[in-house]
């Protein structure tokens, strides 16, 4: 197990280093100058001397590699620098806003798992039943709707018409339901189909027939044979889309006017706030690799064949 962990953590670190390179240099390739943007947004008189003075102060005139080195050294000490436009500490403000986004994403993740596992299993076990056919139609319908549109419909019906939940904003747990539900619903169709197909494939396995021949209860077969066999591929692909989930959350936040990372980053894009953007990309990269690492670890724990392949004993 030790070697497996070391290898995985090693590849995680090198992936993050690559992300940091891309984050740093790609942002600087995008046209637009942060100092000019700063002067324009604050409606300051844009004299060349004043702008140069700020470039000097922020270190924008130093060679790129030197700028990268000083940034990455800071990052290694968990100092992500200060925002150029607001002067706030990047780590703190990102953590603040990211908390909201992660909460929505995590809630959405739980909803995705509950809905897709239960619906997927039921429609596979009761294949071609009325329930199966109805879910297939519903799933198609939801899958073909853009998520922001679904958000508007949900807001209109649940919050405006019925008045069951708060309309917009953030604060209580009730505020969380609609955004995470909207976010989750967009992903559910894919996972329902994935689980359904996985279970149907498991049903064809000879060891399921042997389990039946031994007279195991159907509930035991579903849990220990069908679901357990489908779980690794489900979790792996769930972990792969968690990046999409965070990105989706950023859009949902704007629809629901939630003070999350989405709006924060849009603002940083407009002002070309390099330190904030870099920190954000690195943070997303970290979450993505960490979640994938966790999924791999979990799969190795439940499936001995993966442990065998990875050389973990």
């Amino acid at each position, binding site marked *: 197990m030790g070697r497996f962990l070391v290898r995985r953590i090693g590849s995680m670190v090198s992936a993050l280093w690559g992300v940091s390179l891309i984050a740093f240099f790609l942002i600087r390739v995008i046209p637009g100058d942060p100092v000019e943007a700063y002067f324009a947004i604050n409606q300051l008189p844009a004299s060349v001397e004043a702008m140069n003075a700020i470039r000097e102060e922020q270190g924008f005139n130093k060679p790129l590699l030197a700028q990268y080195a000083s940034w990455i050294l800071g990052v290694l000490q968990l100092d992500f620098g200060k925002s150029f436009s607001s002067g706030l500490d990047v780590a703190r403000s990102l953590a603040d806003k990211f908390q909201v986004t992660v909460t929505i994403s995590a809630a959405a993740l739980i909803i995705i798992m509950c809905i897709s596992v239960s619906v997927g299993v039921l429609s596979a076990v009761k294949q071609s039943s009325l329930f199966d056919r109805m879910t297939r139609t519903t799933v198609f319908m939801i899958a073909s709707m853009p998520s922001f549109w679904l958000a508007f419909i949900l807001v209109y019906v649940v919050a405006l018409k019925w008045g069951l939940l708060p309309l917009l904003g953030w604060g209580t747990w009730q505020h969380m339901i609609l955004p995470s539900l909207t976010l989750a619903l967009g992903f559910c169709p894919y996972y329902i189909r994935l689980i359904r197909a996985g279970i149907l494939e498991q049903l064809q396995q000879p060891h399921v027939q042997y389990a039946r021949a031994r007279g*195991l209860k159907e509930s035991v077969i579903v849990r220990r044979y069908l679901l357990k066999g489908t779980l690794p591929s489900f979790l792996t692909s769930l972990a792969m889309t968690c990046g999409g989930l965070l990105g989706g959350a950023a859009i949902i936040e704007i629809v629901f006017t939630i003070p999350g990372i989405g709006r924060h980053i849009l603002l940083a894009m407009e002002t070309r706030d390099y330190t904030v953007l870099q920190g954000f990309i690195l943070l997303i990269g970290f979450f993505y690799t960490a979640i994938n690492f966790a999924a791999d670890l979990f799969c190795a724990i439940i499936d001995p064949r993966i442990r065998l392949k990875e050389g973990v004993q």
Partner: protein
Amino acid sequence: MLEVNHLSVYVQQGTSEKLVVDDISFLVPKGKVVGIVGESGSGKSMICSTILQLFDDGRRVSGEIRFKGEQLLTKSKKDLRSVRGKEIAFIMQNPMSMFNPMLTTGEHFVETLQAHSAISRKEAKIKGIEQLARYKLPGDRVWNKYPHELSGGMLQRIMIAIAVCHQPSLLIADEPTTALDTVTQLLILDELQAYQHNSGASMLVVSHDLGVISRLADELIVMRHGMMVEYGPASSVLADPRHPYTQALLAVKEKNRSLDELVDSCEGTITEPLVEWKPGYWVRQ
């Protein structure tokens, strides 16, 4: 014990149905071993999986199967479950793919024991290891092993140990030795025979290998294209086979020639009726 009457099985193929088991009737008396022999595709495994209804939709069955006087084919799923593994146990071919790759030997044992009796995991473990020891398996070492860590012969013996843990009155063995090497085959056959002798259970053995069947069976059924071509006491069938197909099968065993060249001589659709040639001995002349 087990009584199969006019059993026919149709398998759906596209829009049409194919007859794979054609009007089969036989009896497995108490304490006796009945062997079914035939080449692959002759429908012999179909009979096994139909007895316990271990198949998906797309199979149609007519006729009746009685076990201890009770109709099996009309039983509800719940009632059927209480028979499976407890009254009728199954030993399947290809043990390597029959065990759940994500569960250990022990977990297979525990779940089987718990399926039919209220027994704690601890008690199940004691019983399981005891049972494994009876089949000359190092219980403590095998208990926590996953299927891919064990050999085919070991898995087959574990399967037998699991099959007999509820003391079933009927054991169905579908190609129990096909995936194994010759030495292991003999060991497995000995073990099956020993269990059958000691417990007085009945057994239905299916194989394409006449050698396997002739070691175990009291009565023999020879199948071809879903039909019974010969059915009678094993000793008579083996000593003096009436049907050319049975003769060909025996010749394969004795002269070490391939079945195809021997069977070609008696190829053609089977049209003759099955008649009782001697009391308890049916054959298509």
